[in-house]
């Protein structure tokens, strides 16, 4: 996985709450057997009209936000289906950071597995960031993972929490499976023990 360090880019505002993974990527695009190329259908039903033309009103279609790398979203972002196609599409579009007051659990986990940093902030900080995101392409935010800081275009600094293990993996681009396989002997030991204690499993 690519290493994650610092993002300095345009932040797009999406204040709608409860944006679910069906909105992020509708099921018609889940039939792929690949991980790549889904950016073009990110937010498909909001982004395109029925005839396939772009909806000019949709935030990521506006000239200022077409290159957005950060998304400032409403509460409970990523709820619903577990489809990892949602973070795949977000990443493929070029968004590397999603900021909200809360995320659905599975989506939140899926982000870290794909080099996307989901950041939970307090409501008052969220309001500041949402306002900043509304300023368009000249207002660029900076997200610094090592320092755990977001800096708005006006220089306001907001600190955020991140799980130390996940931070380490993102910063170093580490693959979870490889890390877990280093603990193989613990898994062997557990299996030996469990097959005695619960042989019916």
């Amino acid at each position, binding site marked *: 996985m690519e290493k994650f360090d610092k993002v300095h880019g345009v932040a797009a505002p999406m204040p709608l709450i409860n944006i679910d993974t069906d909105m992020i990527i509708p099921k018609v695009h889940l039939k792929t057997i690949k991980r790549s190329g889904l950016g073009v259908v990110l937010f498909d039903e909001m982004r395109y009209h029925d005839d396939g033309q772009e909806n000019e009103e949709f935030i990521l279609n506006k000239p200022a936000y077409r290159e957005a790398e950060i998304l400032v979203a409403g509460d409970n972002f990523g709820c619903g289906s577990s489809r990892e196609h949602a973070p795949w599409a977000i990443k493929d579009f070029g968004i590397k950071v999603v900021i909200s007051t809360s995320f659905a659990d599975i989506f939140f986990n899926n982000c870290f597995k794909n080099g996307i940093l989901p950041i939970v902030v307090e409501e008052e900080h969220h309001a500041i960031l949402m306002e900043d995101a509304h300023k368009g392409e000249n207002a660029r935010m900076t997200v610094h993972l090592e320092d755990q800081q977001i800096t708005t275009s006006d220089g306001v600094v907001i600190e955020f929490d991140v799980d130390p*293990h996940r931070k380490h993996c993102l910063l170093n681009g580490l693959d979870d499976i490889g890390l877990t396989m280093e603990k193989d002997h613990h898994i062997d030991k557990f299996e030996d023990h469990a097959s005695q204690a619960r042989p019916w499993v």
Partner: protein
Amino acid sequence: MSPKTLYDKIWDAHVAHEADDGTCLLYIDRHLVHEVTSPQAFEGLRMAGRKVRAPEKTIAVPDHNVPTTPDRVNGIENPESRIQVEALDKNAKDFGIHYYPVNDVRQGIVHIVGPEQGWTLPGMTVVCGDSHTATHGAFGALAHGIGTSEVEHVLATQTLIQKKSKNMKVEITGKLQPGVTAKDITLAVIGETGTAGGTGYVIEYCGEAIRNLSMEGRMTVCNMAIEGGARAGLIAPDETTYEYVKGRPHAPKGAQWEAAMDWWKTLYTDEDAHFDKVITLRGEDIAPVVTWGTSPEDVLPITATVPRPEDFEGGKVDAARRSIEYMGLEAGQKLSDVEIDTVFIGSCTNGRIEDLRAAAEILKGKKIKDGLRAMVVPGSGLVRAQAEEEGLADIFKEAGFEWRLAGCSMCLAMNPDQLQPGERCAATSNRNFEGRQGRGGRTHLLSPAMAAAAAITGRLTDVRELM
């Protein structure tokens, strides 16, 4: 020893390694796999030259993409769907995992097949690349959905990297009123907590009304724990559970059964165990409910009216306005006046035999409203066969329902079963999101009995009027 919750007990029994910061490797007893969220995971294994660590604990079945019309025996017409199902056929064979192919009578929705075949047992950890894995919590198994990267992780290591969630208790006291079902309980709870109310928690459902539910009803309740944002839902096992499990193809037998029972009987929350959050609803207060909006939290008794956006606070005001517009409703409109075009009975929430019985009970000797489209999609081939044996299929067919083969079908509309833009559906499934059942489609979630009532009158209907 300090008192433990049911969640604490199952968690503790499955920690293979704990790091200093509390990050654990949780051992997984059952890994269920379907065709949509697994191809990239198997591909990842191949690229890295890895094997499936525990193929004997890995069970695959195609469900999301499969057509439910009788002609599917001739193959899947949609090329993309066919490729995904064929990829699962091949992956199951190459990696040596248990498999129920599309034309096996045991095929069905993964969350119905797992329990039906006895793969899901009390005290287990169960995962699947599907958010409705919460269903298996009905057995007192810790079960939750995972993403495709985690599917690959479990295939390769039989573990998941996890941190422990908080404990929430949801107690439903007393008895349910006639016409009120497990679906109404689970929707009413989400109405209470909101779709993010459970985020960061594992819910244990308890109380007299939960105890009185069958396994089918308990699965319906746990299935929608995820719609409340919870990682998992749990119900402690009891005689109802053991009765359901006993004799299933993969359930333990003989001395193993006795040993299993000894452990299963320890799987309950100790008195005075700590819950971080407690919610209590009175069973008597729960009415038959329907959803009016595009989030499962948008739920009201069938006797209510469509709310006004300004009745809400914060971001919900705009969300409610958008929902009401999308749904083509008007604030103040009586829910029981809302006319529907389609009825869908099925899904991992309500595609089990008891659900079909409840709907058939209302439909017996009646016809669906003229011009309505109505379909029943049994949750598995075995549910379908049983319903035919019990005469339920005839009731549905005589009423005017289509009688389909098993699959996820119109719950997520990945197969040809889809709503047209503006088409309004009374559905026993689990999500009323925008476009969920087809682009522009409008979904009202309700119980199987309520769906049957709506099919007869052609509008959302209080089932108690037809009982």
